[in-house]
């Protein structure tokens, strides 16, 4: 059987499938289906310095082949995460990634410092949440913003640092390059695309926040394109995500340039998605005589 291990920024994952932030909580709910060690890693629900209540409902709307969400970073705060969730997660045999969001650079730095003192495996800088007024996206949509926040956090972060990019930008390769130049060890992409749905009978947006983040199969081709563009520009590894629900999608994103894959929305219809995807990827590797899953990364032969 082909080797499924991947190493991202010095962290070795048993396999390239990681749960995407915000879709998997802190893992407890999915323990009912399989051991969390089934996954190479878990990116935890986005956390902030202080507890956040999140946005008023409705927070969810379905879309053609996808969904919108505007949860608004509801979370118990970084201290609670460190005390209650992290110790437990660290006993589950999977790599743990803390996803952090802040209102100000100082907040990001304070969280990075706190988490650097724990045994969390990696920090994912969420500068791309479209659903809160100050959810970091203001740092994530310009090169100057990305450079500045990445460089500042870097000074306070002794853990491997992964910067999560927003797709709501004009030139994703520029943004990726800015993150790399400012000290990111890896990039994860893509976060959700800002979208909107309106109930034609009430003439109200379905989501109380008016707009929400689009995820699910609908965004897969955008993710493939953006990962490809970024991979052509930067040397640091890219963790790809956006609409992966079948093993073919995972292979596609890796061929585009991803070194590992996060899956999110797919959990909602199929909690067993990671098992099925891993199975399929392993078979594909064997059939195509790849010895290691790492050989897929960037193997697309573009025209």
């Amino acid at each position: 059987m082909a080797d499924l291990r991947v190493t991202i920024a010095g962290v070795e994952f048993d396999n390239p499938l990681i749960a995407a932030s915000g879709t998997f909580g802190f893992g407890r709910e999915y323990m009912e289906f399989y051991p969390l060690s089934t996954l190479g890693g878990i990116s935890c629900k986005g956390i902030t310095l202080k507890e956040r209540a999140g946005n008023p409902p409705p927070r969810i709307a379905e879309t053609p082949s996808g969904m919108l969400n505007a949860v608004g970073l509801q979370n118990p705060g970084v201290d609670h995460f460190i005390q209650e969730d992290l110790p437990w997660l660290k006993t589950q045999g999977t790599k743990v990634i803390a996803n952090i969001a802040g209102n100000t650079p100082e907040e990001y730095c304070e969280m990075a410092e706190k988490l650097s003192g724990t045994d969390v495996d990696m920090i994912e800088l969420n500068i791309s949440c479209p659903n809160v007024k100050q959810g970091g996206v203001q740092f994530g949509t310009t090169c100057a913003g990305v450079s500045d926040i990445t460089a500042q956090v870097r000074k306070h972060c002794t853990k491997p640092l992964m910067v999560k990019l927003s797709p709501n930008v004009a030139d994703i390769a520029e943004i990726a390059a800015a993150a790399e130049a400012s000290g990111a060890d890896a990039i994860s992409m893509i976060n959700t695309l800002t979208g909107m749905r309106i109930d034609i009978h009430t003439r109200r947006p379905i989501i109380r926040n008016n707009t929400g983040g689009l995820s699910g199969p609908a965004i897969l081709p955008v993710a493939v394109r953006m990962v490809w563009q970024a991979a052509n520009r930067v040397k640091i590894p890219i963790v790809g995500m956006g609409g992966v629900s079948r093993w073919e999608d995972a292979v596609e994103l890796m061929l585009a340039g991803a070194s590992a894959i996060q899956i999110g929305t797919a959990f909602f219809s199929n909690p067993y998605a990671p098992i099925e995807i891993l199975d399929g990827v392993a078979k594909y590797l064997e059939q195509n005589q790849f010895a290691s899953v790492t050989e897929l990364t960037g193997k697309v032969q573009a025209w």
Partner: protein
Amino acid sequence: MKYEVKQCRILQKQELAKGIFSFVVDAGALAQKAKPGQFANILVPGKTLRRPISICDMDAQKQTLRFVLEIRGEGTQILAGFEPGQDMDLLAPLGNGFDVGDCNRKALFVGGGIGVPPLLHPAKLFGQHATVALGFRSQEAAILIDDFQQAGCNVLIATDDGSLGHHGLVTEYFGQVQPDVIFACGPMPMLKAVSEFAEQKGIPCQVSLEERMACGIGACLGCACKVYRPTEDGGMSETYGHVCKDGPVFDSRKVIF
């Protein structure tokens, strides 16, 4: 396992009213695990999200679950097209369910429209101790009345257009009843009125809420509803709970309408 994904063979299908279908499925051990008021998140082929549907009734011996669903949009339209012999993919049992307690107490069940189905099984447990007040748009939309009557419940009906029972709201029956406990499911204005009545009379009341869901198990935090939570200093603060995990059944005093 608290909940699981299971392919359940459809044994029976019946159209109860225009666009409202009853399904009985072979659920195996799920039927023993399920509690009244819990729900299933049902896979809709081709859709990104499952659809939450209440468990209407269950038979632990026959290992069956019953669901009643109304066509409201594309997802329920597809589910309504399922036929006996096909499998439904259920993620169940989800949520907390009703805390039924002593079934010799006098219970009032209040249901509105498609909020009626989850009341059937708990009302059966109370049998003749149950008064069941049901509100529908019209006679054509009325469902499950026979089922409640066969269980020995005292059934009171109200319709918006007066085509069946009382012409008006179910809440207008409340003057006639003095229950020890209330269970309610239906539209928010109805639940609010029921909760206010319970509050005034000091009767414990459990309400079952609806919200749009993704995961159905408490992971995505999508299905928020505003509730009170106790603070450290003994007071109350407002927060968002989650219908799929903390509910769908809430103590009416905890819900912020």
